Every structure is written in C-alpha cells, then in structure tokens.
C-alpha cells in the first residue's frame, strides 16, 4: 500500500454548502473519493491510498490538473484506490466536486 499527500493552493472557494460527499466504489480498477469541506477557502488537500506502487508522478499530475481545472478551494479529498486508471481518477475527482457543489446548481 502506497500513500500520497498533496497540498495545493486553489484559486477560489468551492461553491455550495454541503459538508461532505462520497463517489465511486473501492473495487478493482475503480476508486472511492470522500470529499469534505473543512479547510481554509484557498486550500485543497488530496490524500491517496493505493495498492499499486510506482504511480507517484501520475497521481501528482492528475491532482495538479484537477486543482487547476475545478478550483476545489476549502476541500479535502481522500482517495481509496482500487488500482484505477488515471482517467478514472480524474473523472471521480471531478464527480466528487460536482456532488459537494450540488446544492447550488
């Protein structure tokens, strides 16, 4: 099991007021993302726990792109990975933000 912790500055606070949301499932080739609104408005933390070693640079790139595109300020995202591919990770992260912002859409 490998773990990563990414700390980013976000452009702006994520919309909505929901305190937390969860998407995905921990299954082979998939992942679960728990998102919580418990950080200062311009911070975003992503914690990763994955059974597949050696993908550090991929995780780093996926998370950096995610923060740039979705500006998830104030959110902490915890990933429980089941060996998902990068495209699936990017999709679940975006889905998690959409879900926690749901009440303003």
């Amino acid at each position: 099991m490998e773990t990563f912790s990414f700390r980013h500055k976000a452009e702006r606070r994520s919309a909505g007021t929901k305190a937390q949301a969860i998407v995905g499932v921990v299954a082979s080739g998939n992942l679960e993302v728990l998102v919580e609104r418990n950080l200062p408005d311009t911070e975003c933390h992503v914690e990763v726990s994955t059974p597949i070693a050696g993908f550090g640079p991929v995780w780093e790139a996926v998370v950096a792109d995610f923060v740039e595109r979705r500006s998830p300020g104030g959110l902490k995202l915890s990933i429980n990975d089941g060996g998902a591919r990068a495209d699936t990770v990017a999709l679940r992260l975006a889905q998690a933000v959409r879900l926690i912002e749901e009440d303003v859409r």
Partner: protein
Amino acid sequence: MASWQKAQAARNARLQAGAKFAKGKIVQAADATVLLEAVIRPGDRVCLEGDNQKQADLLAAALAAVDVAKVHDLHMVQSGVVLAEHLDLFDKGVAKRLDYAYSGPQSTRIARMLFGGKIELGAVHTYLELFARYFVDLTPHVALIVAVSADRDGNLYTGPNTEDTPTVVEATAFKDGVVVAQVNEIVDKVPRVDIPGDRVHFVVKSDKPFYVEPLFTRDPGAVTETQILTAMLAIKGIYAPYGVKRLNHGIGFNTAAIELLLPTYGERLGLKGKIATHFALNPHPTLIPAIESGWVQQIHAFGGEVGMEDYVRARPDIYFTGADGSLRSNRAFCQMAGLYACDMFIGSTLQIDLSGNSSTVTASRIAGFGGAPNMGSDPHGRRHPSEPWLRAGKEAEPDTPAMLRRGRKLVVQIVESFGDKNVPTFVEKLDAIELAEKLGLELAPIMVYADDVTHIVSEAGIANLLLCRNKDEREQAIRAVAGYTDVGRKRDKRLVQQLRERGAVRWPEDLGIDPLDADRSLLAARSIEDLVHWAGGLYMPPSRFRNW
C-alpha cells in the same frame, strides 16, 4: 514432349487415393485423418480454413492426427491461427512454414513457438493481402474448408458464415488443388448454393456443429465512462465535421460505445441521416439500437455473428441476404468494400508511438491483425470523390491544386491512454520493433502505419494529424492526447497550446464536451438484455452473455 497438365495429373492421383475412403464424395468423420493422409503430400501448401470467426475444427483435429511419416513439412497458408490444433501441427512436425493473418487466442503460444524456432514464419498479413497471394504465389494444394450443409454432389451451404470460403475455394479448385469440406449435415437439397459442388471433392460430416467465436459481441454492461467520453469526442469531433456516412468500425468497446451513442447523443446533435448510414461491418449486436432507430441504411458483412441470425433475416433491407433469407457474408468483398468504398476506419489498438505507428503486438503476444491494417489504410487506387475524403485531403495538403489533390481516407485510432492493468497505450518505442529484432524479421509487425493514421482519439482529446505540418508538431499532437502516461506528461505545453488554437489538437473543452456528461445513461442499451429488447426478441445472445 513437354506436358502442360502435370498439376491436373497430380490432382487426379490425389483424388484417386482419397476416393478409397469415400462413398461418392462423402467421407465418414472417422476416416477424416486417413483421407487427409491420402490427398496431402509432404511440403504441400495447405489452407486450413479458420478466421477470427468460424473454424474447420474437425479437419484441424484430423490433420493434427496424421502420421508424420506420411504427411510432414506442410506450408500452412491460412487466415487464422486460432485453435490449439493449428499450433499442434508445428509441434508435431506435420507443418513447418506459416503464412497467416490473425492469431488472437493463440497469441502467447505462437510467440513462444516463434522464439523457439518451431515455426518458420513467412509473414503476418492482412486478410486481403493473404487472399491476394492465394492467387499468385501461395496457392493452396489442398484446402480444408467448413460449411453448414452439403448435398451429395458437394454443393455447399455456408449459412451466415460464408466468410473466407469462396475465396479459398476459388484459388484452390481452379488451380488443380483438392478441396475437402467438413459440414454439420448432409441434406438432399441445400438451402442455397454458396459453393458449387464441382469445386468440392470430398465432404466429411462432422458430429457436432463447427465452432464460431462471437468475436463481435460487446456487452454494453461493460462499457466504461471513459469509453463513452471517447465516443462523444469521436462523434462530435470527427463524424460530424467530416460528415462520415460510409465507414467501418473496429471490434473494441470504444466503437461499441459509439454505436450505442448514435440514437442518444448523436440524435441530440441532430446527426441522424448525416453520419453512419452505410457500413462494412459484421452484424454487431451493439448496432441494433441505431438500426432500429432508423440510422442505418445498409451493411455488408465480413462474417456472421452468433445469435444475430434471426435478427438479420428479419432486416433484409439493411443486410445482404440470400434466397434462403439468411445473411450472406464474404470477407474478401467486405474487406474490399472497407478499403475502397468507406471514408473512415475507426478502431482501437494496444500501442501507439510518437509518430503514430500502432501495433497490437506486445513483447510476449503476437495477436496478428485481422482486418484492421487493411481497413486502416489509405488506398491509393481510389478515384471517386466524397465529402469526407476531399475534406481530409484538403486538410493534409492545402497548397496542392484541388483538381490534382488526392483525397484521404480517415483512419482513426480510438484508445484510452492507459490500457488493461494500467499499461500505457502511448509509448516511445513499439514492442513490435523489439520483437521483430529478436525474431530476425525484416519488418516490424505494424498494424496501422503512421502515414495512414489521420486522427487519434483518447479520453484526453483528438489529435488531427492531417493538420500537423512537421514531425515535431505530430509528436506534440500525439503527446497532447496521451493523457497522464509518461509520453503525455512530457508534452511541450506551449506547442500544444498552439496546436489547440489551430484545431490540430482538440481537448474535450475545445469541443464543448464536459467529461462529467460521459455517463452510462447515454447508452441506448446498457446490457445485453436491453439489446434483446431493442431487437424485439430476434437477437439470441450466446449463453455466456446471458446473465439475467
């Protein structure tokens, strides 16, 4: 005095030797091996029929059982190396040399045997290329073919799975070769004559129906959101702007997703009647919703597909059918149709390099090619214009005078940046090159060459290689759609931005596509059961696909 009938005399001798085991043309299954020992000579070129769909399985087993003292060193010239027996022939010394096209299920073992020197490899061909050589320098001495039924005169009914048979028989029977057919049953009158009896010398009745692989059945239940995203990108970014009506789809889940998105996403984009109306395509179950929704006008098929028989029979306006009502497929003609009459091939692959060469060969697997390298090539013999062909030609060569400018066939590779087990699809160097070096081949087994590829679609976007003006731009366009692979992460951000501004790279947002909209609810059918409903119960999926 010179004799001009040596081959005829040799055939007559073979037929005489075989006649001992036949009653008329009919041979008992138990005598199949002795028949083959009688009609095959050491060193013969033998076509053992089998492709990526149907298999002459009884004759394959019979040939694998011959006495090696009598039959050895054969040169196998066949579409598919698919059954274990096909390779047993080489292990036992019955066969020595191999020219073929496809080896999907035996890809690992064939690689091992090539490395071990058990097989002398001629070449890995495209189907049409191998068929062409049947008429020039690889004409079979003996063809072992397969059909549904035969009458006592040897007239054959191949049913929906005609596939390669007419081509193999044409080359063998008219050049003094011997044709042996295995059939499921002997009847008084065949439902239709697919192969005339005077081209068939012996008929062996099998105890069980010949094997057919449902290779073109994709379960909608297994289509992922990423595949749906690639399908949305392809429809909106390629089918729509080029107005692609005449096309061929590959076998993968990405193109299955496209088929399932036509009546939903395609409909919403107002594309019905403007794209995807005429296909060179097997009877893909995933195309049923589009057919039922009135999208598709005509389909010519390479082969049949298990479970689609009744559906096809009930839709003769769409499919080619015979006097008996069932599908008439023909691989050679359909390959030709895909080559010359289609404006686009879109299919998947396992590896793509920085120039755009692609291959399904990896370090330990030689899967062969099937139809893709032929479908996925731009035929220089084409002369008739069409909108997509002209437009693609103009994009590639804007400065050539229009009257002298060749059009271009759209050759699209649709992939996900990472494949199974997180193996990257985009690579600096293809495994195929390493493999060719290890085997001492003169050519790496490339499925689609870089100079034929026009677009690469991945979940990260579309690279339009027609709009790339030099090697550097091409490489960066490919990196731009290589996602988070090593190749993708090494892209030059500034150059990629320029390519996006020119439309040579289009990311989802450049096409107004939000990846979050790539949802399974977009699929016109979400399960095999849904497909059965769409078909009004006429589609009968094989048991392995029935899970309800």
